[in-house]
């Protein structure tokens, strides 16, 4: 049985405090940027020739606006067309809004990243239960610990989304759907049946309730099975049933969640496999965190029955889901690249022109790196190797989420600086504290699980 050590408490608290200070400083500095500051900044950049790239982007956006036939001069939005003519006040205001959006986006990305680890772990856990897997019961308590973060984590994500409003989700600006307003956008207005704040909150609550109810009962049955008399597998069977039902619910809600919580930051853009794409990233991160926590607990001698075949299997999933993620990333990219339809391809043009390094760097981190590192069967059994690969995978998938949100909210005004690092530390501390608190609550071995013997003897 694991007890939450004081050192871990102090580390997570320190992460939260340092993260909050860093993020707060970032927020304070960017929030006090006025339009006049931006003008001076832009003038300086122009004299240094540093703004050349942004002009090129402006051209693309201008073309796009014409193609749409509507002048969506919404200033909160990177995609909004700023034409070459009004490079004075309008552009400065636009850039100022982008700078103001940055700390909100940074906080949202980090919150979402840690929430998705918990959500991915819940899905993976449900798959193990529904498949009645024999290898994994020894890891169930670790998975249950990670999923404990889901409820607080998801509520925080929704809270940040609603509080930030049009700093992140441009469609939350009521002017976008008001035909009288200069900011009126025909496409966003056309989608307002789905994309409205009330609907967003109601759907979010339905998703979170469904996930949390499953999590609550599954954990309850898992613990009850430990105390059940020998031969009584009632709770195990119940868990199997609700897990199968949950997986159906999950696949629909996860997909809708990815439209609502991520895809809608670019309300003109859409991709039909986006839900799968987010799911793949979510599962890689979840399995990676499971492997890391398992190796940590094993190094403390708390999981004596977990052998290197379990680590090997987790690493296989890290490898496999990384390939699966790449497959979906590329499928999404290639179809849009090939067809070259303006309203779709603008998504990748922004990312390749303004986010070249994170966009292609993330492919190297999420695909090439795990491919080459985890291909060898023996390396998958070496703990420090799995941890090292895991750190790169997690960083890569953080950048993946970064690339999903930032281009829509801050355009080319991005940087991984104080607000981003601060937000990651803040949520990393919170995640660590909550997850290890949950792990410390119960015995680490689900001794009542009918497959526990098979799991203990597992070898490949």
């Amino acid at each position, binding site marked *: 049985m694991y007890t939450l050590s004081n050192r871990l408490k102090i580390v997570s608290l320190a992460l939260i405090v340092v993260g909050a200070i860093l993020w707060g400083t970032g927020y304070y500095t960017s929030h006090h940027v006025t339009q006049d500051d931006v003008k001076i900044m832009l003038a300086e950049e122009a004299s240094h020739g540093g703004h050349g790239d942004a002009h090129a982007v402006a051209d693309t956006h201008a073309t796009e606006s014409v193609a749409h036939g509507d002048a969506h001069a919404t200033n909160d939005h990177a995609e909004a067309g700023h034409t070459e003519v009004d490079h004075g006040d309008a552009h400065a205001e636009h850039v100022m809004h982008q700078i103001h959006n940055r700390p909100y986006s940074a906080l949202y990305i980090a919150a979402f990243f840690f929430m998705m680890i918990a959500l991915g772990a819940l899905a993976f856990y449900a798959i193990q239960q529904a498949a009645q897997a024999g290898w994994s019961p020894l890891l169930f308590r670790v998975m249950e610990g990670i999923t404990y973060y889901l409820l607080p984590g998801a509520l925080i994500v929704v809270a940040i989304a609603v509080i930030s409003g049009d700093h992140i989700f441009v469609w939350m600006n009521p002017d976008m759907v008001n035909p009288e307003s200069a900011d009126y956008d025909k496409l966003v207005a056309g989608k307002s049946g789905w994309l409205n704040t009330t609907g967003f909150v109601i759907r979010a609550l339905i998703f979170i309730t469904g996930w949390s109810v499953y999590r609550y009962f599954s954990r309850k049955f898992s613990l009850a099975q430990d105390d059940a008399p020998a031969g009584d597998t009632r709770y195990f069977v119940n868990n199997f049933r609700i897990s199968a039902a949950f997986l159906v619910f999950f696949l629909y809600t996860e997909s809708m969640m990815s439209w609502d919580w991520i895809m809608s930051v670019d309300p003109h853009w859409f991709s039909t496999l986006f839900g799968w794409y987010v799911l793949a990233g979510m599962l890689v991160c979840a399995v990676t965190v499971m492997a890391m926590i398992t190796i940590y607990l094993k190094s403390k001698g708390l999981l004596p029955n977990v052998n290197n075949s379990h680590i090997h299997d987790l690493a296989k999933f890290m490898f496999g889901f990384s390939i699966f993620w790449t497959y979906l990333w*590329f499928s999404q990219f*290639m179809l849009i*690249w*090939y*067809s*070259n339809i303006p309203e779709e391809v603008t998504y990748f043009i922004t990312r390749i022109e303004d986010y070249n390094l994170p966009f292609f760097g993330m492919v190297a981190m999420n695909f090439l790196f795990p491919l080459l590192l985890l291909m*060898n*069967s023996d390396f998958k059994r070496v703990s420090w190797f799995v941890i090292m690969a895991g750190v790169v995978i997690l960083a890569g998938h953080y950048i993946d989420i970064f690339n999903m949100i930032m281009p829509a909210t801050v355009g080319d005004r991005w940087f991984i600086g104080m607000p981003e690092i601060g937000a990651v530390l803040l949520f990393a501390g919170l995640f660590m504290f909550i997850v290890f608190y949950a792990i410390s609550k119960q015995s680490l071995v689900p001794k009542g699980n009918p497959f526990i013997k098979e799991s203990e003897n597992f*070898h*490949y």
Partner: protein
Amino acid sequence: MEASKVIHAIYNDDDVLMNAVKQVKAAKYHIDEVYTPFPVHGLDKAMGLAPTRLAICAFMYGCVGLTVATLMMNFIMIEDWPQDIGGKPSFSYLENMPAFVPIMFELTVFFAAHLMVITFYLRSKMWPFKNAENPDPRTTDDHFLMEISVTGNQNELESLLGQTGAVEINIVDKAH
């Protein structure tokens, strides 16, 4: 040509076979060969066989496939008969690369898989019309056979194999 004797111990369960192999190895006998109707996981390790190098071959074959695909598509679509791909007439391999990725992937897999199978056959000395080497046809159905050469310790070996749960023990003269 020298005739030598071998023992054929026959088992009817893979778990029993695995334990038998471990016991025979523990008693320091050399197992010549094990014939099984399906691959038994961990048997190679239990027998003390050297790890397979087939995976390294597969990786190299994959690299060959990737190279072939790249050179082939570059010749076909860019050099020999330049194509306007997706309305983007760049005539550059690199800029049209996304269109070729599925082909690069498929040929990587194709080369790795086919050459790996061929390598495996060559390495196992298998070719068409070759006579089967397995001494007992039941090893293609539901029995497992362990072959150990006899070097003056026939009785000890027989009793050991009997204890490991062999359902049948035969002494066979094998012509070399």
